[in-house]
């Protein structure tokens, strides 16, 4: 079908492997995202705290710099588990903001003008479609959570020496796993909202609401029933609990977990339940054709 001949010819060339085709969606989604200046600015701002954290690690491990800045080692916050928990909490909250901006447009753009049948009429399943969109958020949120955190961990390991990296190597697991569950939950939730609500601003609002309204309901439940189980509806708190337990601490940097603490298994359960509910919504919404009941 060469342009100058203007006639139809079927395609007989090589095809890409089927398993890799979901990544076409990811590639095109990133290309669209990087056209937005606001997104680029937001992404850069999300990485700025990591530079400050890196600067702090450098100063904490450099006597000359401390002398020049007239700081005393004893007055500095130790670069240990609590420090990395702070990094994780800051970066995961920034990931939440980034997710609120990026997530709502990923599926809504395809649903608004009925493009879904075009995807699904090809050798491309709904699972491939979700995987392709999930990879966008997965890669993006990884770039602002566990990736900078591991880089900072490596930096501290390199500067501290004396086997610090080996004695703290276990921290890699909570850094990766806690980030993974947070990224998975945020991504699936925002994809589910994106599949449900087509207008970006409304979808962003719904993501915020889905975090803050359950928290408020949970607190009311606690106040009325005199219990602490209402905290299960506070997803950020549940993530913090998982983080604290993952880092083998009793308390988090932003508050104490008392004797009436929720079991960590329940916290995992809540976040996994949010993921499952999001998948149920995606399964209901991502259909090439809707069946009319009645």
């Amino acid at each position, binding site marked *: 079908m060469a342009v100058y001949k*203007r006639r*139809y010819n079927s*395609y007989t060339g090589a095809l890409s492997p089927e398993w890799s085709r979901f990544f076409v969606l990811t590639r095109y989604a990133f290309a669209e995202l990087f056209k937005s200046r606001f997104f680029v600015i937001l992404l850069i701002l999300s990485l700025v705290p990591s530079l400050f954290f890196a600067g702090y690690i450098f100063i904490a491990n450099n006597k000359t710099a401390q002398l020049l800045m007239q700081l005393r080692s004893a007055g500095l916050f130790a670069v240990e588990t609590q420090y990395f928990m702070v990094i994780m909490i800051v970066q995961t909250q920034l990931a939440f903001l980034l997710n609120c901006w990026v997530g709502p447009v990923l599926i809504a753009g395809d649903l608004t003008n009925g493009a879904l049948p*075009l995807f699904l*009429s090809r050798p491309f399943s709904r699972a491939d479609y979700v995987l392709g969109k999930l990879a966008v958020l997965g890669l993006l949120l990884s770039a602002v959570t566990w990736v900078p955190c591991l880089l900072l961990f490596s930096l501290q390991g390199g500067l501290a020496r004396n086997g610090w990296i080996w004695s703290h190597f276990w921290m890699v697991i909570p850094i990766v796993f806690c980030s993974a569950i947070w990224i998975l939950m945020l991504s699936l939730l925002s994809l589910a909202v994106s599949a449900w609500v087509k207008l970006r601003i409304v979808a962003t609002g719904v993501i915020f609401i889905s975090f803050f309204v359950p928290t408020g309901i949970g607190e009311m439940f606690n106040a009325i029933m005199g219990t602490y189980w209402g905290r299960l509806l506070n997803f950020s708190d549940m993530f913090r609990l998982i983080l604290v337990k993952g880092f083998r601490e009793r308390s988090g940097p932003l508050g104490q977990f008392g004797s009436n603490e929720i079991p960590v298994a329940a916290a995992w359960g809540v976040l996994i339940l949010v993921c499952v509910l999001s998948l149920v919504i995606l399964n209901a919404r991502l259909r090439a054709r809707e069946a009319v009941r009645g």
Partner: protein
Amino acid sequence: MMNPTIELDRLEVQLGGRTILHGLTGVLKSRAIGLLGPNGAGKSTLINTLLGFHSPSKGSVRVLGLDSHANGKALRSLVGYMPENDAFISKMSGVRFVRYMAEISGLPPNQAMERAHEAFVYVGLGEARYRPVGTYSLGMKQLAKFAQAIAHGPQVLILDEPTNGMDPPARKRLIELIREIREASDICLLLSSHLLRDVEETCDEVLILRNGQIASICNLVDERRANRKFLELETIGAEQTFTSALEGLGCECAVFSNGRIKVVMPDRVEIKEVFKVAADRGVQIRRMNHRRDSLEDIFLNAMEQTGVADGRI
């Protein structure tokens, strides 16, 4: 031996608790198949079932020997689909949209880009290919959908109401393209349309649905050939010798009152030979009706039938 294009085996599809397709059974062997039926007949449901969007509740449907349910992915790798409704990504430029779809079908990025440009030029949207699809007119959107359906070079082209919203010149152009594609390649075509003329101009075989059942399966090529043989004459002066002479040519004749004669001609006999026989015997042919059933007749006959056809008409 080549597989039939579409095989329906007691296909039943239920949606939302309602049975939409009621045990369709039939074999369609032509390379260009038209799908006809009034609104709600089940045309789109059948197409969606072919594409694997709906699962059959009973029976099965096979396209080129591939079961739509069991071999869905393999079947969809052969298909180019142009949906009836709006289906595009509004912010993308036309050529990028088609490239995107071609890449999802498995074409490597460079090949997809090349074929997207070619498809756009081919459908006549070359000048508009860098504009966002959302800014296209309705007719241009139809052509963009057509371009994405053919860019990856499918073996089966499924077109659902392709000429909807097109002005007459654009419709004519699209029909010409469809015919050209059909003739230039070994592609199989399934075209669903309300416009009988679209189907008549592009298809060799027609499946007519009514209330989710097969009203008729009709091979248009056979129908056209059969119609070409049938003549109705009104004559003056025709005697036994005229009909005997026609029978001598191999024709079958039935004589009625007032000089009316019905003639069924064999393939080898041309109409001019009938005129020659009449001239030799001084018979005046006052009127000749070379009767031919149009697709409209076939469609209306199918709609008028009270029962359900289980075979060919």
